[in-house]
């Protein structure tokens, strides 16, 4: 890897944390009076705002109405000034759409949607400053906002990322560690029951293993075929 030493010999990380140490978390509920629920969270240098509207009548296309439970509508976006390089499209690109979908799946597992038939709950999350672990910070912010809105949930949804460097698991990755080429695992769970709401893994190490296997298979096959054709 290019120069960056993610874990020093003494066992410290780039920002001076131990391997299993989280970043400093600061949070606040009820930041806006207009919305039904809102929250702000800082996890190290990653900062996010979450706003919840609803439950309310389904707006837009009526066809989305579900007759036995509420529709959850999530929108994830990043402020144009949130990253080192200015973002052109704050939302609507493929990465945001995927993130929105993941948030939706996570909260459908936790919010008791069956109590609000034919209505809609909107969850909007915005990253104000991005320093790794965007998904988990968003989940944490949205959880606080949903609780602030008084919407019933089975449990808190807590999320965190974990990385893997030199056989050592690192908790709550920052941007440099996420981009360092190691594997990263985002996990959202309902802590009391230990149920997992979402698990997502982006890994290079695992892929390297697979590529080795595929490589072997292809080489073996080539050899076999070449031996056969020679005869």
């Amino acid at each position, binding site marked *: 890897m290019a120069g960056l030493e993610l874990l020093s010999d003494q066992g410290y990380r780039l920002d001076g944390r131990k391997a299993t140490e989280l970043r400093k978390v600061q949070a606040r509920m009820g930041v806006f009076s207009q919305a*039904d629920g809102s929250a702000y969270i800082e996890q190290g240098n990653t900062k996010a705002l979450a706003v919840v509207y609803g439950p309310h009548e389904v707006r837009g296309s009526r066809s989305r109405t579900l007759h036995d439970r509420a529709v959850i509508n999530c929108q994830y976006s990043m402020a144009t000034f949130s990253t080192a390089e200015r973002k052109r499209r704050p939302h609507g690109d493929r990465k945001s759409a995927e993130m929105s979908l993941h948030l939706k799946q996570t909260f459908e597992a936790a919010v008791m949607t069956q109590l609000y038939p034919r*209505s809609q709950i909107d969850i909007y999350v915005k990253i104000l400053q991005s320093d790794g672990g965007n998904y988990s910070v968003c989940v944490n912010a949205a959880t606080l906002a949903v*609780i602030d809105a*008084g919407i*019933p949930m*089975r449990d*808190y949804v807590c999320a965190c990322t974990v990385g893997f460097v030199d056989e050592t698991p690192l908790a709550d990755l920052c941007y440099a560690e996420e981009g360092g080429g190691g594997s990263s695992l985002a996990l959202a769970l309902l802590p009391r029951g230990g149920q997992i709401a979402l698990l997502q893994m982006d890994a290079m190490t695992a892929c390297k293993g697979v590529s080795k296997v595929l490589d072997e298979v292809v080489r073996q096959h080539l050899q076999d075929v070449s031996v056969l054709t020679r005869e």
Partner: protein
Amino acid sequence: MASDMRLPVLRKAVSVSSAGSDRADHKDLVVPGDVITSDPGFMRGHGTYIDEEKLTASVAGEVERVDKLICVRPIKTRFNGEVGDVVVGRITEVQQKRWKVETNSRLDSVLLLSSVNLPGGELRRRSAEDELTMRDYLQEGDLISAEVQSVFSDGALLLHTRSLKYGKLGQGVLVQISPALIKRQKTHFHNLPCGASIILGNNGFVWLYPTPGQQEEEAGGFYTSLEPVSLADREVISRLRNCLLALAAHKVLLYDTSILYCYESSLPHQVKDILKPEVMEEIIMLTHHKLMEQES
């Protein structure tokens, strides 16, 4: 134009000891996922669910026990209507024989054509023509006051305006606050002695309007005066609006007495100054004093 700018100040933490000491009855506060009891003898109310035979909270709030029934009431939530509640709402849609009304509830409320007083007396028959001219009575964006007639199984409200005190609202100011801050009372319509009237909707929508002269019987609640409102009246209404916002910001229950006391305490200040944090604090403290005196 001079504008008032200020830096953010440190939020003061509410001291638990001072708030808790004057209240002997200690409240149980729970958060989602907290087990309230594992005794199977209790009944599950709102804001709770059964998880592995344990009664668990699903919202953050106070635990309320009525005999064997356990509920958790969240601090802040949308309006949960009950029969007889007075609401103020805004028409969002005109449909066949009904209007859809936004009332800060979880679903839009329904106002049927058959449950409004049409101009021309109570005993008028509703014809097909009425259905076609529904938009002349109430169109999208109009504000109405109404009463909850019944609640549907999915939580939607059925409204009616079959009384002369309900109907379309004319000139005035709408203030939206949390429904939890409205105190339930015998009447929610008040003609305040300061020269304005107020409708305290149970759904957190408060309507401030100049006290009307004489009621037009014929119009059946659809008459709206377009007379210009005098400057004095408008000032009173703006002052009341800012007082309501100040009371809501400090989580004081809203009813006629608290609003009047707040109005009286605000009189030494200019209307626009009421919303400044330091002035607001002073006014609310005076209001609290007056309320305490009145109680004892």
